[in-house]
């Protein structure tokens, strides 16, 4: 009994150290999305062509699961994600892009340089739609199901591993959903 009392603080310390140690492995930048299983917030954004042009609206996110990618020409990690998005589009999954706080001309030049994997691109120059989406940085990607609900949010670039291991299976599952 007495020996147990002596060991107790050590056990308590080990427990606390393990708890805090686990905390160190968590990335504080990855905030859980408030939108999971909720409908995509409403927006209707112009395109990136001169004078606006057709972009897309949240209302069009119905009927088939899609990826909604937030990016910008000034974003450092976006070129790294770009080949993966291109691959995703090539595999037949529709990717929609919102250029966040970006000049349409810069967005156009970026796409001309790297290639355009997007089914459609819209410009959110004010960043207001991004706030409605709870965006904290670029790139971020939302997976929207057939009913227009957000089902998953990727913070940071989609790596080939994340695509193959997590997002692609989810997209296939969402396609199979009624």
């Amino acid at each position: 009994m007495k020996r147990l009392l002596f060991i107790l603080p050590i056990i308590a310390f080990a427990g606390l150290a393990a708890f805090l140690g686990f905390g160190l492995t968590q990335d504080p930048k990855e905030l859980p999305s408030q939108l999971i299983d909720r409908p995509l917030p409403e927006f209707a954004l112009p395109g990136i062509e001169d004078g606006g042009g057709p972009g897309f609206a949240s209302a069009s996110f119905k009927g088939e699961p899609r990826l909604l990618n937030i990016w910008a020409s000034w974003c450092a990690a976006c070129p790294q994600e770009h080949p993966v998005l291109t691959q995703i589009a090539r595999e037949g999954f529709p990717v929609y892009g919102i250029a966040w706080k970006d000049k349409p001309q810069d967005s156009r030049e970026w796409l001309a340089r790297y290639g355009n994997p997007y089914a459609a691109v819209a410009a959110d120059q004010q960043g207001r739609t991004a706030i409605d989406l709870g965006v904290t940085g670029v790139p971020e990607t939302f997976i929207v199901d057939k009913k227009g609900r957000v089902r998953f949010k990727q913070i940071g670039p989609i790596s080939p591993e994340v695509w193959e291991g997590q997002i692609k299976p989810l997209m296939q599952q969402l396609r199979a959903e009624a």
Partner: protein
Amino acid sequence: MKRAFLALALMLATPAAAVLPDEMLPDAAQEARARAISKDLRCVVCQNQSIDDSDAPLARDLRLLVREQIAKGKSDADVRDYVVQRYGNFVLLKPPVEGDTLLLWAGPFAILLLGAAGLIAWQRRAPVATPDSAPLSEAERAELDRLAGPHN
């Protein structure tokens, strides 16, 4: 004198806010409310600053949004809810007392109570009986006197 002045100046110095004049609301009372709300909202880019402190572009967007909502006549609580709906409780620098934050709020007090309980239990323990509490024998008293040296 110079030193006193310097010390005074240092005491009067306050951290610079990131709010730019072009963001401010014309109504001073509304602006004061916006400042108070902004001080409680976390900048999601540079996470240990409030949006009132942060120079990040997203913090500016949120400051403008807070002011826009206030100008629309929303209450302080409405404005906070508006941001929380989008970014979650995490944006509140002071998280609300709720089911999943209970551990956060009650934890320190629980540990304090546990410690106090332990201390009381330890204090109340029966005093350890001394093995031999009989008065000193004559021989022991003499030995003690010898060791203590001659009395005055």
